[in-house]
């Protein structure tokens, strides 16, 4: 079931009514209801994948218990390893099997051996990357004793399959969600209204902005060689906005739903395109994933490498920098791979890794240079230039993310930097551009809020409601176009 479908428009009020009016006096019943609703929500798409979700979450519950129970002996490590193998193994089979087999066969063929490809017709379960990461956090946190495994099974299963976040996050750590599930929720009017407002904004960004842009993006990316450089540039600007509107829209809806059920889910986006450097961008984009990789991959690798390397320098590089480079390369390789079984995603990840390393490397010389020329960090021209450079890096990386192959991405970039960049674009949808500019303006004006439609401080109800109705009308007007699934739910 998708958030932007009619089915969901019926599903949500029914669950809401049962949750607050029927099961409100009994926490266990409320949690059970949410679990059933979550399974129904997920199974609506494919019941076979629901079975997989149930198997994964149940096995994680028991593995977690066994890790906890064997805290004082060697078996703890064995159970933990078994848990990691189960989760990563399932993710590997369902998401990466064909990719690895095909890559291996291609690699072998370079040495003159021809193996027949054994690609399998495997259905990719929606949101598998998200819920396996939830499960991994659950086990790691238990292993590190940050989380108590002695819990009610319903609470754990609900944590690992909570319907607002199951398809595309935010990857709400069990250490933060479990306590909320275990505690009685109280209905708070302001929180619920804020939740509805956030859902409305999420639907707007998805349906009115992302889906409209998608029509042009799909066309441009399918016909790269037919379009001029200027049109390709429009295409990548559109895609950058589309993926942001799509994914932040999903996150806003998920967080909003959480709010109306009395939960506080973590913010996943904080106006990332207004970042002035690549590090800041990653502090504002897909925050739940970035912090996941930081805590479970980047920091442990840095820590382990720092234990191994005892010298001040490694191959003329300061040890501190060397550790950063090693940890970044591995983290960003995995981040790319997490997004999809294609070399384009790996390259996308490595581009970001590369520029993060560059950024880290230039920090000190930049500081000295600024000091020498008396430039302050708050200089508006510097801010604008740095923001634009960050945007260009991010957009070039998006070309790889969106392209179906590296060849297509190269063609796209070569096309942009051709002489036709200065011709008049072949695609210039005025209405879409106008509404997108208004969207960016709203985001800029409200950049200090959690989301752009947080207008509860507007004094007059008529103005507030006028804004809401205006957005609803725009959503209805855009519903006629073909309904698109959320980009990140495919990961």
């Amino acid at each position, binding site marked *: 079931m998708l958030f932007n*479908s*009619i089915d969901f428009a019926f599903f949500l009020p029914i669950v809401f009514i049962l949750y607050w009016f029927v099961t409100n006096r009994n926490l266990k019943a409320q949690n059970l209801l949410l679990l059933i609703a979550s399974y129904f929500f997920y199974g609506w798409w494919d019941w076979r994948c629901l079975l997989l979700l149930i198997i994964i979450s149940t096995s994680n519950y028991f593995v977690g218990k066994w890790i906890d129970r064997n805290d004082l002996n060697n078996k703890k490590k064995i159970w933990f390893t078994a848990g990691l193998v189960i989760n990563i193994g399932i993710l590997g089979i369902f998401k990466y099997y064909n990719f690895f087999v095909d890559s291996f066969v291609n690699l072998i063929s370079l040495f003159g051996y021809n193996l027949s490809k054994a690609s399998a017709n495997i259905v990719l379960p929606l949101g598998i990357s998200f819920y396996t990461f939830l499960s991994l956090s659950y086990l790691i946190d238990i292993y590190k004793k940050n989380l108590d495994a002695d819990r009610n099974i319903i609470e754990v299963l609900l944590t690992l399959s909570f319907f607002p976040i199951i398809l595309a996050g935010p990857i709400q750590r069990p250490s933060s969600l479990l306590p909320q599930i275990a505690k009685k929720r109280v*209905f708070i009017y302001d929180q619920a209204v804020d939740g509805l407002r956030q859902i409305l904004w999420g639907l707007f960004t998805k349906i009115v902005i992302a889906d409209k842009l998608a029509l042009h993006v799909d066309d441009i990316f399918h016909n790269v060689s037919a379009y001029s450089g200027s049109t390709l540039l429009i295409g990548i600007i559109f895609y950058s906005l589309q993926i942001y509107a799509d994914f932040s829209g999903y996150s806003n809806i998920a967080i909003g739903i959480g709010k109306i059920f009395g939960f506080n889910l973590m913010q996943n986006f904080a106006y990332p395109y207004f970042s002035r450097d690549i590090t800041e961008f990653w502090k504002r984009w897909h925050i739940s994933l970035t912090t996941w990789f930081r805590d479970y991959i980047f920091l442990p690798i840095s820590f382990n490498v720092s234990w191994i390397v005892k010298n001040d320098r490694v191959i003329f590089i300061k040890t501190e920098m060397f550790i950063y480079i090693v940890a970044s390369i591995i983290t960003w390789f995995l981040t790319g791979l997490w997004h999809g079984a294609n070399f384009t995603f790996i390259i996308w990840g490595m581009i970001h890794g590369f520029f993060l390393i560059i950024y880290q490397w230039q920090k000190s010389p930049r500081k000295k240079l600024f000091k020498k020329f008396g430039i302050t960090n708050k200089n508006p021209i510097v801010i604008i230039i740095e923001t634009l450079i960050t945007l260009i890096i991010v957009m070039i990386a998006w070309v790889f993310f969106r392209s179906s192959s590296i060849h297509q991405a190269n063609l796209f970039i070569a096309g942009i930097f051709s002489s036709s960049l200065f011709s008049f674009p072949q695609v210039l949808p005025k209405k879409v551009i106008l509404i997108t500019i208004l969207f960016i303006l709203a985001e800029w004006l409200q950049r200090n809020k959690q989301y752009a439609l947080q207008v509860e401080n507007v004094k007059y109800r008529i103005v507030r409601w006028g804004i809401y109705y205006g957005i609803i009308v725009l959503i*209805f007007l855009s519903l*006629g176009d073909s309904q698109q699934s959320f980009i990140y739910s495919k990961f």
Partner: protein
Amino acid sequence: MKLFIKTIIIFCIPVIILVGVYVWGDPFKVIHSYDIYLSDYIMLSRGYVSTKVFLKNNKDYHYNSFIFGSSRSTAFTCKEWQKYLATDCSAFSYGAWNESIEGILRKIQFIDSMGNIIKNAIIVIDTDMTFKKNNNSIDNDHYLISGKTFSQFHLKYFSEFISNFRLMRTCVDYKLFKTRRSYMKDFIGMNIGDLDPINNDWLPNNEDKIIKDSVEYYSKSINKFYKRSKTEMESGTQINSDDSLKLQKINLIFRKQKTHAIIIIGPLYDQVRFNKKDLQILQSVFGTENIFDFSGINDITENMYSFSSDAIHYRGRTGNRILKSIYKLPQSTMK
């Protein structure tokens, strides 16, 4: 909680009213079922109506002969075609406005999936429409054909309804007072034809006027019949690998069903000849003997009276003439 529910209800009132008006007025006739789909209210989606009529009558009439194509295919009526078919044949006109090859394929697949026998089929191909890229006419089709979900289908029509304030106003005003007002002219009183409730034939109501006084009738739109070049032009190649695959899928069903299929390339006023390479593809898929090309310069296209006053569609009598020539001669001689 009470305050929350109260606020939600008050907030939703305008939306509920809007949805209520849409369901009550049903301007596109997609909410309720109708015995007869008249088109004097607004221009309905013929693709949708075709499937509705098919589903409604199929059990009683066991359709086994079908006409596929765009609005131009309406020149071929089941009533006329039936004359050339065996007595056990039951014909149905399964067309859609601006029909594409995708739409034709989906309809054939749908009929096949319903377990119907397809004894005979006419596919009417338009030089300028059937293989046109970005032809999204299937979006307006029945959700069983377009592949959309039930909700996506209705959202599309609802969105069209609320995007047109005059249509909303017309819907309420006309429903309540049954009076035609000048501002309604885009939606009411089009009255350009009816759809046969059984075989879905399009019955245009201008034919009587043309027969009565064709000179007078055509004089009003004489500027549409521009002067054409004496040299025959050929259309560019249109059938790509995707289209070719669709044609093969159609033929696969026809072969499975042992269908006697006729592919008619319709006559157009612009006298542009259907592309030779495209023609060869059609011939290789369906067999040369089953392709009847009426495009280009020929007796039919030379005569302006073969066409309706819009110069875009050919008349029913033209369709009758084509059918007659096809069933008289195994291969077209109209070169």
